[in-house]
């Protein structure tokens, strides 16, 4: 901690300083609260919405359990049951599990890291509103008999236009694709937030474990989600325009969907589990009043789990006819992932053993998690063995396994987290007495509901059947499961009562540190975070420095007010958290809300084929984004003193800028998506080499060469444009000309490539090869449109005097995107023109 004698700022603080800080960060009143972008407000909204979807999906589960309680039941029709189980899985996975974790991140991270807010508050608000609007519309399809019914993983050919002709599958594909974009926006916010807005001195070995898990969670989203975004794009293009990616008769392959889906789907399990594990790693030390045992080992386990989880996807496909040796590689990897998971479990047990556990509600939920998750992990090792999986695949054994993993590994820690952190955001803590009853009901109900499913599965009951005949003798076990489900639901209902009774969300004067916890979120917080930001030298600052709360409230530490009259936070270096510059943050505004609503409208209107209206909404959405971006990248101000004579600049460019980091993360998303595409292209070639053209049928080589030259030329021109950015003695003319020329070169390269393929007689709907070639152009086209929009934006800013040699973040980001697009374009040309020549 900061030396007890010399503090960064002296007392008394100016009388108006605190009032000004409060005014700047004030939450808009009434219905204007939808314009707020502050992390606490958005985090609370986000969490509440995720819980709403949890309840809705839970009600669907109860309907399913009612239907299965007795044999030959007619409570639900087959189609209604299909829609309900599809929506239950989809909503739980996409609208609850991932969003609630992001929500907790947005709510907790700034307070935990000592930041005033995350670095992109409007992006966080956009992600939330997009999720809320998109999620509600998606869920609403259930009431109009329009919901998808192909299962939460939507395998083709069942989900193809031939076997699912209605709009249900389209709602899934476009709706989920859209919500994934929102998840990626949240992930970018979290990565940059954790790496760049930690309190001064908070090195990586002092970072709260929840922040570590959120960092790895967000990193996994960056690499996992693009695979399923690509898959949804491919299937939607097949459904809408007959591009045969998954149609075997024309060289496609339905298994391609499974590869892409599970390359996302398996990491998804760990995407959900790791942050929950992070919550446990925060709760256990507090409840045992002792530091976490094996901090470094846990970080190792988290990183290893993050990576290993990407090598397991094929274990969802053990019954698809993949060669035995291949299956064995993935079987081995599936068992290997038990190692890092085991490290974490033993670290928690060791922490409990080294301290004295208090029997609070969060502790009970953590213990429940340890029991249930360990059982789920053990059955996971069982299904990782290929011969066992062949027997248990698609039975209720698997249903039992993944509910033990997901509910045990995520829902129980989440409830522990609700009880643990409620006092930090509410005037009252949740009831300990009710909490213990809730735990008992949930723990007993869960096991009564799901343990018998292992047995029904082993007795041969397949998952997803809407009913079964009495002769199968599954009725007793199913009735027990139904009773258990209602017990579990009773626990959750009492939790809602507790929430209504006790939870009083507040920005300040909360119940406070009732557990005696050690991390920064337990300091007196307000809507602006901490009154002043301390330098951190310990992983448990509140235990090591008991006077910290008072010092911070007095304003003795860094940045005790607002220096520039705007919302601000300190940007620090990613590893050692050295202060680097003062970031001015945006305040409330309509644009994130409107942009999210309009983008949601674009996607949903497309689903119902209202193309013109969809395009209007899309364009208006882009206009809102432009308005939002226009006010960002503020003019540099002279350096400011944040305390201890530490003068920080108010503007940063290049790799110092938080915006540069966000752009890099976005490019990793784009790169990951394109690599998934390259995999798909090569995969379909291995399956159907006969549809790949002979040399004579290929477009002449001159076309791709010209395209490639244009791409390289464009990059060079843009670099020259960087050197002639407007300045004191230079107008924007040369810059505008060169930037426009670079954009034209990029567009030209794409147009030439598409024309070459068209003139060679290739059509996207003819076979899988044609579809894949035009898909490369589609992906390149998306980026080209983004580059054109950003170029226009940069040109407009240069005319308006908002872009010059110093104030140039907009151009830096354009440069990064442009060069990436060129790289992707060159790889695409090599693949679609070079590979057939090599393979042919």
């Amino acid at each position, binding site marked *: 901690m900061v030396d007890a004698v010399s503090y960064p700022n002296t007392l008394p603080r100016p009388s108006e300083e605190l009032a000004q800080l409060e005014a700047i960060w004030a939450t808009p009143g009434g219905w204007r609260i939808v314009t707020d972008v502050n992390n606490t407000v958005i985090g609370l909204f986000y969490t509440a919405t995720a819980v709403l979807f949890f309840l809705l999906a839970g009600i669907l589960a109860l309907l399913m359990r009612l239907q299965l309680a007795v044999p030959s039941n007619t409570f639900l029709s087959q189609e209604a049951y299909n829609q309900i189980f599809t929506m239950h899985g989809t909503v739980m996975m996409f609208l609850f599990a991932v969003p609630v974790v992001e929500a907790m991140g947005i709510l907790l991270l700034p307070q935990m890291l000592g930041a005033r807010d995350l670095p992109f508050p409007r992006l966080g608000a956009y992600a939330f509103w997009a999720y809320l609007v998109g999620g509600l519309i998606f869920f609403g399809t259930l009431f109009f008999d329009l919901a998808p019914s192909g299962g939460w993983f939507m395998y083709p050919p069942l989900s193809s236009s031939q076997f699912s002709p209605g709009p249900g599958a389209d709602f899934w594909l476009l709706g989920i694709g859209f919500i994934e974009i929102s998840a990626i926006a949240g992930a970018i916010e979290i990565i940059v937030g954790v790496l760049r807005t930690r309190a001064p001195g908070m090195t990586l070995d002092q970072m709260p474990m929840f922040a570590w898990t959120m960092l790895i969670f967000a990193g996994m989203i960056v690499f996992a989600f693009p695979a399923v975004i690509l898959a949804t794009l491919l299937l939607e293009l097949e459904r809408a325009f007959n591009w045969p990616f998954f149609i075997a008769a024309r060289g496609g392959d339905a298994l391609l969907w499974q590869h892409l889906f599970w390359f996302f789907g398996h990491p998804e399990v760990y995407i959900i589990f790791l942050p929950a594990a992070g919550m446990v790693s925060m709760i256990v030390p507090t409840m045992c009043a002792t530091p976490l045992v094996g901090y*470094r080992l846990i970080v190792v386990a988290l990183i290893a789990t993050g990576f290993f989880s990407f090598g397991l996807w094929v274990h969802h496909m053990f019954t698809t006819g993949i060669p035995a040796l291949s299956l064995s590689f993935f079987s081995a990897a599936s068992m290997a992932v038990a190692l890092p998971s085991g490290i974490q479990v033993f670290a928690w047990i060791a922490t409990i053993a080294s301290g004295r556990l208090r029997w609070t509600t969060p502790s009970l939920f953590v213990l429940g998690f340890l029991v249930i998750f360990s059982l789920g992990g053990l059955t996971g090792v069982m299904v990782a063995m290929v011969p066992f999986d062949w027997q248990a695949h698609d039975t209720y054994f698997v249903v039992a396994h993944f509910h033990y993993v997901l509910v045990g590994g995520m829902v129980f820690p989440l409830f522990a987290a609700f009880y643990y952190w409620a006092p930090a955001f509410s005037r009252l803590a949740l009831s300990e007495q009710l909490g213990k009853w809730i735990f008992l009901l949930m723990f007993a109900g869960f096991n009564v509901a799901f343990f018998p499913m292992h047995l029904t599965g082993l007795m041969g009951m397949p998952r997803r059947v809407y009913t079964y005949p009495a002769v199968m003798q599954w009725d007793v076990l199913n009735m027990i499961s139904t009773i258990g489900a209602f017990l579990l639901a009773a626990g959750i209902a009492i939790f809602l009562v507790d929430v209504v009774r006790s939870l009083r969300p507040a920005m300040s004067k909360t119940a406070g540190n009732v557990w005696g916890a050690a991390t920064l979120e337990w300091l007196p917080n307000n809507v602006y975070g901490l009154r002043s930001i301390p330098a951190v030298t310990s992983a448990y600052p509140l235990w090591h420095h008991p006077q910290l709360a008072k010092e911070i409230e007095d304003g003795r530490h860094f940045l005790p007010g607002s220096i520039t009259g705007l919302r601000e936070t300190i940007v620090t270096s990613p590893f050692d958290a050295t202060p680097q510059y003062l970031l001015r943050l945006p305040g409330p505004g309509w644009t994130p809300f409107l942009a999210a609503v309009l983008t949601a409208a674009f996607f949903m209107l497309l689903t119902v084929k209202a193309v013109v209206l969809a395009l209007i909404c899309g364009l208006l959405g882009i206009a809102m984004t432009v308005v939002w971006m226009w006010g960002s990248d503020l003019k540099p101000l002279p350096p400011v003193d944040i305390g201890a004579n530490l003068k920080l600049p108010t503007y940063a460019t290049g790799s110092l800028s938080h915006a540069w980091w966000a752009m890099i993360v976005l490019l990793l998303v784009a790169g990951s998506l394109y690599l998934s595409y390259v995999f798909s292209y090569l995969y379909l070639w291995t399956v159907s080499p006969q549809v790949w053209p002979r040399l004579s049928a290929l477009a002449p080589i001159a076309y791709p060469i010209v395209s490639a030259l244009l791409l390289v030329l464009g990059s060079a021109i843009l670099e020259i444009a960087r050197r002639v950015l407007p300045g004191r003695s230079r107008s924007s003319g040369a810059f505008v000309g060169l930037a426009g020329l670079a954009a034209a070169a990029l567009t030209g390269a794409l147009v030439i490539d598409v024309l070459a393929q068209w003139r060679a007689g290739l059509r996207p709907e003819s076979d899988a090869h044609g579809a894949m070639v035009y898909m490369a152009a589609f992906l390149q086209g998306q980026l080209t449109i983004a580059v054109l929009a950003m170029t226009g934006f940069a040109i407009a800013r240069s005319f308006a005097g908002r872009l010059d040699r110093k104030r140039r973040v907009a151009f830096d980001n354009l440069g990064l995107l442009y060069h990436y697009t060129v790289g992707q374009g060159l790889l695409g040309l090599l693949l679609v023109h070079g590979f057939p020549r090599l393979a042919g």
Partner: protein
Amino acid sequence: MSDTFKLSLGNLLQVLAPPLIWFLHLTTVYAAEALICIGPAGAAATMMAWTIALATVAALTALLLTAWTLHRDNARHPQSLGSSRFLRGVSHLLILLSLLGIAWTILPTVFLPTCA
């Protein structure tokens, strides 16, 4: 690019390298099986065995190289504290885990014929 940035990037690569090497090894042997084992049975099996052996040697060499860079950095900056030292420790342990992961991946080839 500042020296601090370069150092941070170096640390980051050292942390990411071991699990990345494990992942590349896994995808190489998996992809090789898909591509090689469609050929004539005898020749394909031999080629596959060689591919697995080569990929494993390459992965182990890469892990050793990562370990060497860690020891070099420890020798160069024996007094370094904070994130760099922490990440070097993390990287050491990840090398061990990745080594186990690679051993685990090739274990099936001991029990199953190549191209099974």
